[in-house]
């Protein structure tokens, strides 16, 4: 693309555009490599290895880190996701409703829960709810509380995503369905929502990745030994062993899940791009 440009422009003295670009790119590489080397030299690798990569400690984490901590992280995430999806769907439909008060309530919900840090919502669920309704227990104990807290946070984001997905389905689809005799609700369920979900699968999967990380906030609810997930498990072990290796292993476990999920999302996005063409 640039080649014809260069020829079209009268040759000024000095560098052509291609040459300038090669030069600036070369300079960027040099700076980058220099920075990496500087870090590598400056860091005390011996101490880092002692603190973060002790094989013996890492080995004693297995299989618990997988069968208990990762399992709980996945469980918390999925239950939060399901609650968020159901609640998000309801809020999205309210937001699209022709009934004013529904739209306002949905709008207010979204504004509040999108604006609050997830941490505060966990604390609220953990402290305020038992205070306000003494004697009542949230169904499912810790699992129920986590599902609720994560779900409340996720619902706000998912509602907006689902709403965008529904609006991205061409208007003619609803008209075709209505003219065949579908009621508005039936048309929504059988025709519109299945198409909307195809459109929003990538952003929903992204939301799953975010929830996966947010599940670490369970820590603030106070959990039993069996209820610990990756972050809490890693931190507990780090303090008993006075070594940070468990933190590194826990981190790797997160990446074990989030990297493939991210890959799946990019694949879906690329496919969607192709379908548009």
């Amino acid at each position: 693309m640039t080649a014809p440009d260069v020829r079209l422009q009268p040759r000024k003295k000095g560098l052509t555009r291609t040459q300038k670009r090669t030069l600036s790119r070369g300079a960027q590489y040099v700076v980058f490599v220099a920075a990496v080397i500087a870090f590598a030299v400056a860091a005390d690798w011996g101490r880092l290895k002692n603190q973060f990569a002790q094989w013996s400690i890492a080995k004693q984490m297995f299989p618990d880190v997988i069968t208990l901590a990762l399992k709980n992280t996945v469980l918390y995430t999925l239950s939060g996701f399901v609650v968020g999806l159901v609640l998000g769907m309801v809020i999205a439909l309210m937001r699209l409703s022709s009934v004013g008060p529904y739209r306002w309530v949905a709008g207010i919900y979204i504004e509040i829960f999108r604006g609050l840090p997830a941490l505060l919502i966990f604390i609220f669920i953990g402290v305020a709810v038992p205070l306000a309704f003494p004697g009542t227990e949230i169904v499912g104990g810790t699992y129920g509380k986590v599902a609720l807290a994560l779900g409340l946070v996720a619902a706000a984001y998912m509602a907006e995503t689902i709403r965008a997905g529904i609006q991205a389905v061409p208007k003619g689809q609803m008209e075709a369905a209505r003219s065949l005799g579908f009621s508005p609700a039936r048309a929504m369920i059988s025709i519109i929502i299945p198409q909307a979900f195809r459109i929003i699968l990538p952003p929903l999967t992204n939301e799953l990745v975010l929830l996966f990380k947010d599940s670490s906030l369970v820590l603030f609810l106070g959990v039993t030994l069996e209820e610990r997930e990756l972050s809490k498990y890693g931190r507990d072990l780090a303090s008993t062993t006075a070594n940070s290796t468990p933190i590194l292993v826990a981190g790797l476990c997160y990446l074990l899940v989030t990297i493939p999920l991210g890959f799946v999302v990019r694949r879906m996005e690329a496919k969607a791009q192709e379908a548009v063409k």
Partner: protein
Amino acid sequence: MSQTSPAAGAEIEVRGLHKSFGDNEVLRGIDLEIGRGEVVCVIGPSGSGKSTLLRCVNLLEEPTKGQVLVGGTELTDPDVDIDAVRRRIGMVFQQFNLFPHLTVTRNLTLPQRRVLGRDKAEAARVAAENLARVGLSEKADAYPASLSGGQQQRVAIARSLSMGPEVMLFDEPTSALDPELVGDVLAVMRMLADEGMTMMVVTHEMTFAREVADRVVFMDGGVIVEQGAPAQVIGDPAHERTRHFLSRLLDPAMAEVEEGTPEQLGKGD
């Protein structure tokens, strides 16, 4: 104005119909009767309100004033079960509007099952029968995206027919098609007309209107300017506005613009 033929009683009746979008009055008092088995083509310049009229007939647009009756049921009655009435009215769109996430067969069976409550076997039988009628049995398992425009439109017609409608509405069914695909769709519509289906067709296909329609209705500026037998309205129009419209339609310079419109619409979808 001569030779209207509400032979076996009116299947579609439009009385004093007005429709405004905000301040824009698009339909300014339409009266129209279409008899059972009659084929009526509606022609007129862009923006004259043809689509709006058609969409008022199955209440996709809510009339501002006036009445619409189909098969004796008043659709404009606020207490009518509109979904029940719509099952008796098939509608074919310019942009086909097939359900892209479903196969051809599922496009035909899902509405039957969800709306009419037919069982699986019955729905499949009706779907296969109607696919055969439009000549697309071999596409039963294909997805809409893999079909040509003409094939998609024939599937859309088969989907409507599967609901067993008494009336079929067509809104420029061939305007989004490449010229070589128009014929197949018109052939299917011709077959329906021969079988005695009551049809209201908005179209720019003058040959079809001339050969198939029992009556042609010319609209301009939200009113019916004239109507009558095709030979009269198309061949020997009584009104200057009709003459003007027809001459522009036949003028090759204008024809280019006419062809441009459906393509732009297609891209917007």
